[in-house]
């Protein structure tokens, strides 16, 4: 596979993706994406997401990180005439996440997402977390209460909000709101958790909390995270994928990608010479 991307006057070749070591949770195969206006945002991506590991997507602005991430839970279906090509195969059933035969609602119940800007509902903290259970018709109050507490604990927010669960989620600070959104995504016990620059709007302390959380969460869930912060990727990710202009340039174990990138373009990006 060759890349035609040419930052400055350099011409590079994309490095074929490395396989992951452990079990694979999702395998992206020859995946391309076109927006409604015809713009091709992703070009034949091949990538493996390792189970119970953190996979980071990095790359300059506009390279298609969010587009790829949002394909995992079919967020693009919300807007008409977006087109997927290729496959994202989910283990263990080997179903195609972007196949038309699969109900996107099922996918979103198994693959949850945390957005760049905290977006709690203008409802109580409790209702925010319980929403995912409510929509699937969960009536058992004791169970809902238990899940809400577990999720808030899982998102390291319980101690801060346990006395004011009936307050509006919007009354929390930005960092707390983001952890509330994480708790909301955890409540339905997803298999994959997607983070799109979850700390972009947060202060350094909240950022640290969220990062610690990501590392903690991978014990139970597979994580894909988009970040602009190279240190963040180095801190939290087991695998890192470098993307550029809709293509996957290099994918490897984070340590290796950051220390000895095989692709000169990756090196250029990591050393801050473009992007």
């Amino acid at each position, binding site marked *: 596979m060759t890349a035609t991307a040419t930052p400055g006057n350099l011409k590079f070749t994309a490095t074929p993706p490395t396989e992951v070591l452990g079990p694979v949770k999702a395998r992206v195969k020859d995946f391309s994406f076109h927006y409604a206006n015809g713009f091709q945002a992703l070009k034949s991506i091949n990538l493996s997401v390792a189970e119970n590991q953190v996979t980071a997507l990095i790359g300059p602005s506009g390279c298609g990180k969010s587009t790829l991430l949002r394909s995992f*839970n079919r*967020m693009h279906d*919300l807007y*008409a005439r977006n087109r997927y090509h290729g496959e994202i195969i989910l283990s263990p059933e080997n179903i195609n996440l972007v196949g038309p035969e699969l109900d996107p*609602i*099922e996918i*979103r*119940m198994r693959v*949850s*997402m945390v*957005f760049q*800007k905290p*977006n*709690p*509902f*203008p409802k109580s903290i409790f209702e925010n977390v319980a*929403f*995912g259970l*409510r*929509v*699937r018709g969960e009536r058992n109050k004791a169970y809902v209460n238990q899940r809400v507490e577990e999720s808030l604990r899982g998102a390291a927010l319980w101690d801060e909000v346990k006395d004011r669960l009936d307050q*509006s989620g*919007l009354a929390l600070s930005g960092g707390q709101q983001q952890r509330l*959104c994480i708790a*909301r*995504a955890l409540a*339905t016990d997803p298999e994959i958790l997607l983070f799109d620059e979850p700390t972009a709007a947060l202060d350094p302390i909240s950022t640290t909390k969220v990062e610690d959380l990501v590392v903690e969460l991978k014990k139970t869930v597979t994580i894909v995270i988009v970040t602009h912060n190279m240190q963040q990727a180095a801190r939290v990710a087991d695998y890192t994928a470098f993307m550029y202009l809709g293509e996957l340039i290099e994918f490897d174990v984070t340590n290796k990608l950051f220390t000895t990138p095989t692709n000169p373009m990756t090196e250029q990006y990591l050393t801050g010479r473009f992007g």
Partner: protein
Amino acid sequence: MTEPTPPTPDAPMRDVAALRRNIASRKRADKSFFISGALIIFVSLGILAVLFGNLLSEGWPALTQTYYTKADKSGFGRDDLGGEITRVGDGWTVQIPLATLSDIKDSDVSKGLVGKKVGIVGRLRGGAIPQIIVREIGLADQIAAADITGTLERTQTPPAKPGDEAEVVYNILPGPLAVNVDKIPAEEKSALVSGTPVAFKMDDRVKEGRFTARSVSPLITKNFFTSFPSRNPGEAGILSAWVGTLLVMLVTMLAAIPLGAAAGIYLEEYAPKNRLTSIIEINIANLAGVPSIIWGLMALGLFVYTLALGRSVLTAGLTLGLLVLPIVIIATREAIRSIPNTIREASIGLGATKWQTIRYHILPYSMPGILTGSIIAMSRAIGETAPLVTIGALTFIAFLPRSPIPPIQREISVEQQSTYDLAVAKDPSTPPPQPQLHFTGGEWLTSEFTVMPIQLFQWVSRPQLEFHQNAAATGVVLLAMTLTLNGLAIFLRFRLRRNLKW
């Protein structure tokens, strides 16, 4: 890094004076726009104040005043009270001397009223011989616009010769009445000097040689709302009009709000964004601008003739409902559009279906906007006249539609009875039918009606000045209704949006 170069001596000097001239000229334009803008606003506000002031000053007295007539001496009738008009400062008052009311029987009841404020009611009713009933004010809701009120006094003249009965006379001592003479024609006003005899007419006929004006009368306001329209302007009220307006608005609300909200939600959340949708969108905006009388014509054809709904409350409500539907749709769509996409994505992302997202998020969060828009729509509908005239609203209604609150009755239906009759003929031991619940609440829908603006129009088109004042009073009430609705809309907007900041 380059060394900073020393300034070149012949670098051109900046012309600061020209700069300042430039600023000054631009600021002049600023200022002249500000002045003309402020002027326009103040002039418009002034005109508005004059218009409202006029309406209020015309209408307010009608809520609080009754009529009197100037009388020549010979014009005094049996039921009239004579008095003298006096100038007091800017106004006029009439001091009415004792009125002798010999018709009042000397009973315990009458004695009990002595010293209390009383009113004489029923003088206009009861046909040729007016019947006089005295009631204590406060107990007596029946005191009408044209009735006399005052303090009751009882005088007992000792018998002329022993053995005769004592003569008992009841008098009503009305207080001085302030008189508004603005409505008196100029040439008559000049003749109106202190000491002119005037009479409070209990009769609605305005005889020649009299003019009418108004005097302040103590308690009338309530009557305006509880009386039907009448040939007598002093007695006429807006009962059928405001009840009609309320019922028509009820139908309008039930038709326009759910339909408009549903249409708005469909267009925003479900409709594919294609050419057809955009044509529909443009035309909804256009519909909002269709002259209301055209709606009346369409409703006449559709509801009255094709669907045979009659010239009824239902037809009127549906017509106004259609008229304001675009307003509700547009308000709904705007409210929905203000909800950020991130909320939809969060909800959908948690596995909610589209309907769940609408039900739990879109609808509640857009509710303030939908409600505000709906109330604005109602306040527009409440004043509409043309379409209702077109579909044939009546102008003079002295009855009320049946109550829309369903009276639930238990009765035996005709079918039950006939089945029973047949069965009994065969087998006499058949148990009699049980009465069943019947809802008879729908009749008001097919009732004829009038509404406030039509009542207003009808009064304005009469020649008598008194009716014009009634019309103005109706205007005041209508305006108050509209302002209340708009106030409610503003309140809701602030109240409900307080906890919805994205």
